[in-house]
């Protein structure tokens, strides 16, 4: 429980309406997009200025109160769950787009700006910000930076960290720090921006973000391909990329996800397909034509059962809407869904899929997957029920096998979701111990009292 005195101090900082303490409200800030974790904070504070964030952190640091920074709470790692209670510092009201500079191709935003609102503002000026986590309708910019989010576009355009030029960050002691600037090139000291991009709210609270932009590609085309065998589809993707074509997006969903989506929103999808591949090419109209032709040829050679080039933007939008419903389809399928985020080198994708099949056969757990075939980032999911202890333990064991299989192929634990709570039990095996130790030391320097999002990323030593 938090002291009444602290609550009234918080109210003095942000105003009464911006401090939530009722049990109902606390309950509504106890979760994120995951199904295995929940914990109530003691108080929720909705900030509107950097100054407020600074004063709150100063207070929390003095009183040693845990602070969990939160945007829209759409992450799938447990990152924004206040696992130790304390304060949830919610930035959803810091939602102004401060600047869009069409000549410099930069924009500066507050952390609570919703990615889709940002995209819409950019589109009006013919600008493009590629990182596209599939929570784009709800996720906040601060969250995407703190989680270093990825998405389908990242196969060609890279992830969030490739776009962050400048940050304003409030440190645990309340200091307001400015990093980077508005230029693409900037070689001033260590790349501290990278330290905070992907820090999952453990090192500071991001209060302002300057991003690099691109011109909106003038043309794009989407190809849908059906495969009888997931691994064959994976191989086709590898071959397309090896032939020198880098599509804007290369996504795939399995039969399970396909059926679930068609069930939720009937749109005439080929529900018998074992695997469905979606490939988008973008750029100048001539380049898109040529690239699409090459993609179609390679898919034919790669054994696609059916290939369809979307005839217009509407049909393409339908396919992509289907893809963005993929996670919803997966998460709604069982009481507890363990969705992994393992990523393997692209050329190891077919082998990884074979390994997943083998694990599924051996353990008896059905494994569904969808994801970013173009960059080897799969989201294998296991459906279970956390209330059934024995089954859940077996599910966890199966997940571990999936993760070890990815590691054995030179892959990584998380491609784009982050570690948070969901993957911390694997971290020790996924990271060089020296690097892990250094990471913990950095945390100690920046947040000696461990008030910022405590209990995340690495497992705490049990005393």
């Amino acid at each position: 429980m938090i002291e009444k005195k602290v609550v009234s101090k918080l109210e003095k900082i942000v105003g009464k309406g911006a401090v939530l303490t009722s049990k109902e409200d606390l309950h509504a800030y106890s979760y994120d997009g995951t199904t295995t974790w929940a914990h109530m904070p003691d108080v929720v504070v909705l900030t509107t200025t950097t100054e407020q964030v600074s004063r709150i952190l100063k207070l929390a640091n003095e009183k040693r109160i845990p602070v969990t920074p939160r945007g829209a709470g759409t992450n799938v790692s447990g990152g924004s769950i206040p696992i130790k209670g304390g304060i949830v510092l919610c930035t959803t009201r810091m939602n102004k787009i401060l600047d869009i500079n069409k000549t410099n191709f930069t924009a500066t935003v507050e952390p609570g700006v919703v990615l889709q609102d940002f995209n819409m503002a950019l589109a009006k000026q013919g600008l493009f910000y590629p990182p596209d986590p599939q929570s784009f309708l709800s996720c906040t910019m601060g969250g995407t930076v703190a989680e270093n989010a990825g998405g389908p576009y990242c196969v060609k355009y890279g992830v969030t960290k490739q776009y962050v030029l400048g940050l304003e960050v409030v440190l645990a002691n309340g200091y307001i720090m400015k990093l980077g600037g508005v230029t693409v090139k900037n070689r001033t000291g260590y790349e501290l921006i990278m330290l905070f991009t992907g820090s999952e709210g453990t090192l500071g609270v991001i209060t302002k973000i300057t991003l690099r932009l691109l011109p909106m590609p003038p043309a794009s085309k989407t190809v849908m391909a059906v495969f009888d065998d997931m691994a064959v589809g994976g191989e086709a993707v590898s071959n397309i990329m090896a032939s020198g074509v880098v599509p804007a997006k290369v996504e795939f969903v399995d039969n399970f996800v396909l059926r679930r989506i068609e069930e939720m929103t009937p749109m005439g999808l080929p529900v018998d397909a074992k695997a469905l591949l979606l490939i988008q090419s973008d750029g100048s109209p001539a380049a898109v034509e040529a690239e699409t032709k090459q993609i179609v040829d390679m898919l034919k050679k790669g054994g696609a059962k059916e290939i369809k080039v979307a005839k217009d933007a509407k049909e393409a939008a339908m396919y992509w809407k289907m893809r963005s419903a993929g996670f919803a389809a997966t998460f709604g399928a069982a009481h507890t869904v363990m969705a992994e985020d393992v990523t393997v080198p692209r050329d190891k994708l077919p082998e990884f899929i074979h390994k997943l099949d083998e694990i599924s056969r051996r353990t008896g757990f059905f494994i569904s997957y969808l994801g970013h075939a173009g960059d080897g980032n799969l989201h294998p999911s296991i459906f279970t029920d956390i209330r059934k202890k024995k089954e859940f333990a077996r599910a966890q064991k199966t997940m571990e096998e999936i993760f070890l299989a990815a590691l054995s192929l030179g892959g990584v634990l998380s491609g784009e979701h982050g570690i948070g709570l969901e993957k911390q039990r694997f971290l020790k095996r996924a990271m060089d111990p020296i690097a892990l130790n250094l990471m913990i030391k950095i945390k100690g320097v920046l947040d000696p009292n461990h008030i910022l999002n405590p209990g995340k990323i690495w497992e705490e030593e049990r005393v």
Partner: protein
Amino acid sequence: MPKTREDRYEQIKRFEADLSQCMKCGFCTFWCPIYQEEQVESSVARGKNMMIRGLLEGDLEYTEEFAERLNKCTLCMLCTANCPAKANIPNVIVAARADTVRARGLKFPYNIIYRWLLPRRTLFGNIVRFASWFQGIFLPKTEGTIRHLSLFLSALGKGRNIPQIAPKFLRQMVPVVNKPPAGVKTRMKVGYFIGCMTDFAFPELGKHIIEFLTRNGVEVWVPRGQGCCGAPVFRGAGDFETGRKMADANVKAFEDFDYVVTDCATCASSLKEYASFLADTPQRKKAYTSFGSKVEEISQFLVDVLKLPPSAYKPSPAARGKKVTWHDPCHLSRHLGITSQPRQIIKSIPTVEFIEMPNADRCCGMAGTFSLYYYDLSKKIADKKMASVKSTGADIVVSSCPGCEIQLIDGVVRNKLPVKVMHIMELLA
């Protein structure tokens, strides 16, 4: 007072599928008119759904705070329409409101009005005369049937710009049977369900509709046994018990008709939803379902049932040569799936230019009881709608929901827009 846990959550449990369908992706935050204003988790479907789950799991109770958060929803269904899992959280919210009412009772003034006053007809009639004295709530005189209390009008004291109460109500102006004029062949007979707003505030609209229908070969009956559709009672306040009384009365009043036509989107959707929310016995289920299938909103009736040729749509003097834009009432577009019919009618009217407004299907923020409790919030939502209307340069914004119209009138006046608000039928001669 319900005792066991099972009993306490009787209504919520009926919608458990929707409750568990939500997987917390948070997409609803993008669409929710309330979240867009407040950016607070308890205002959006995901938050409300999780709070209701908390209730079932025993973490939360029916507190004042809980009820207050449940009430803060316009039931506009934008969340459901855009939900990847199609989770109908508004249904769960209505059910939870009902269980809250059963557990906590009704709040003032509903408790007095619905539970104590209504069964005492003489007293009720006397109080009606002093309506304006009573918490600013206007209690219209009725002829022995239950009428809802024009909650929109009760916001009177809060500075809302509202239409005047008509000196004479529609049902006092028109006979029960309205036959087509001489020389026009009777094609069919329908029952006309008069919404409260049309009855008390816009009786001329009702007269015009009867006149239009009869001219087009429809014999229009106005059964006197009809009452309020019940929307504010069972959807807004969650009082299912009173809702059933209202539903039973309306079902009975229209039992002899194959079609029940109404000019109000909210009434239409409420009449159709009796079966989903109020059917507590197999008999009621059957009666409500059959009644619901007879209900037609006026634009749907003209286009789909009457199948009027485009030549039947002639401009009224007020509409002639004007630019017109259409606002989709939530209860029409998402609750009933009617979007093309009204547009088809407007486009058919000679000399009228139709301009589609951006976000035509976004909620106007009225939502009856909601706007009573949260007028400031309701105004902010309406202002977004006003910006859409303004961007079209239209002379007239039309709708098919007198509730929306009240909100649009208020928005137009507050924003000083040179725009008239009309019901779609007022465009027609």
